[in-house]
């Protein structure tokens, strides 16, 4: 399937709106219909934003395997936006925790980050996302050079692991939901391990034929 530049533009606009819509719904409900968010609307908002951050991390990580399976190279054109949405949802998730749970009590927040392992890993994941968001522009790819840009953006792997761990350690007893995220992440990372292993075994020629454009980690 080949997409013309015009179609890719339209697709990007669609994906942008779709990706923003969970936030839009939550924001609209918070302002006009908090009742729809249940008895603890702030908790609902914080958790939904966290869920969406994890989902966008997984979707971003799904681009490469999906492209390999389908041959749809245009998927790569969406990846930066998807990754930035993961960062966006991480940011508003953190903001809602700071505002709703701690009412901007910075000392208490710092204690929370240092003391509670699930907060520590969540916050670490957020900090690691910062350099990725900051170097997401074409100009930054050029400035860093494709090789080091790619190396830097491999940080997304530990970020996703920390994100799932954050969820896992947050739940009290029933880990069904975090386990689903963990399985999906394991599949996405496992795919990369298998692929790298095959490459190393001499599938070089075939691999380079499928190699993505410069500046994309896989």
């Amino acid at each position, binding site marked *: 399937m080949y997409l013309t530049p015009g179609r890719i533009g339209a697709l990007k606009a669609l994906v942008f709106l779709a990706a923003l819509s969970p936030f839009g719904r939550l924001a609209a409900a918070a302002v006009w219909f908090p009742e729809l968010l*249940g008895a603890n609307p702030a908790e609902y908002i914080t958790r939904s934003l966290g869920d969406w951050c994890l989902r966008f991390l997984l*979707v971003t990580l799904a681009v490469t395997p999906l492209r390999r399976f389908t041959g749809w190279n245009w998927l790569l054109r969406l990846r930066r936006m998807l990754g930035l949405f993961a960062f966006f949802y991480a940011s508003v998730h953190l903001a809602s925790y700071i505002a709703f*749970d701690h009412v901007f*009590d910075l000392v*208490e927040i710092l204690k929370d980050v240092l*003391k*509670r392992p699930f907060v520590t890993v969540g916050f670490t994941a957020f900090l690691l996302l910062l350099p990725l968001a900051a170097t997401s522009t074409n100009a930054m790819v050029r400035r860093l050079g494709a090789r080091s840009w790619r190396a830097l953006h491999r940080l997304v792997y530990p970020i996703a692991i920390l994100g799932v761990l954050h969820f896992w350690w*947050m739940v009290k*007893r*029933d880990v069904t939901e975090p386990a689903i995220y963990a399985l999906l992440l394991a599949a996405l990372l496992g795919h990369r391990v298998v692929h790298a292993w095959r490459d190393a075994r001499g599938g070089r020629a075939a691999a380079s034929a499928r190699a993505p454009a410069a500046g994309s980690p896989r």
Partner: protein
Amino acid sequence: MLVKRPHDYLPSELTPEPLYRRRRELLRAAAAGAILGAAGAAHAASGGLPKLPSTARSRFSSPEKPTEYKHVTRYNNFYEFGTDKTDPYQYAGRLKTRPWTVVVDGECAKPRTFGIEELLKLPLEERVYRLRCVEAWSMVVPWVGFELNALLKQVEPNGNAKFVEFTTALQPDTMPGVRLPVLDWPYVEGLRIDEAMHPLTILAVGLYGEALPNQNGAPVRLVVPWKYGFKSGKSIVRMRLVEKQPLTAWEKAAPHEYGFYSNVNPDVDHPRWSQKRERRIPEFFARRETVIFNGYGGQVAQLYAGMDLKKFF
């Protein structure tokens, strides 16, 4: 695709149809209630459950405005029905609450079994209590019930009765949550005998002047307002007077997180939640500072005189 449709609007969050149809009637009733309000002490509910006999408001009641009925009955931790807060409202309807008996035995002279009808005949009163969950949220709940000591005295505890072990219902065919080994079922809780005999400790059989909804622990539950909510076991079937400190369900599950005492205490940090502040349902901001013993220190602090509350958390 990984993108799931968000389930932002659960069926349980919408007004049930029968209630919606009755809205004018309810509005009229509410208006009438506002006029007659001063006459009845109990808070009126809209749950459509059997009304309990008119009850006097206890001197132990808090003057705070109770949390709305719909929030008290739709935001619950009752893991036997699932771990989501809305699961109990959705699934607890299946719980079989009749026939129901409560066995009171162990270290006492006259062990016996109480039928629920008998318990409902005890003099009831309304107790408006603050409820503080270990998850850093709180509510104000107008319970209807009687002091636990009224029941315990009837079985005449002996000198070996140092603790009470509470066992709650386990109905695998009505409780979808017990299929998962989330906790070691049945749910067990415990109190020291002096805590159990304290006048603030009640067995609740009602809420907002009506029978207790299943999701809140029908037909009879424990309420210990100065402890985190999980200490107040729901749907009680047995109370055993024992000499040794009972091992509670949460202690078994995570001993470093949940202690036997679990008194509300902003100075004892929980590994998962800071206990400094709390969110009063349904507010957005956790702007209330949590008070030691959930504000009941005046009545209960002497129970723990000389104890290191950080050690006995």
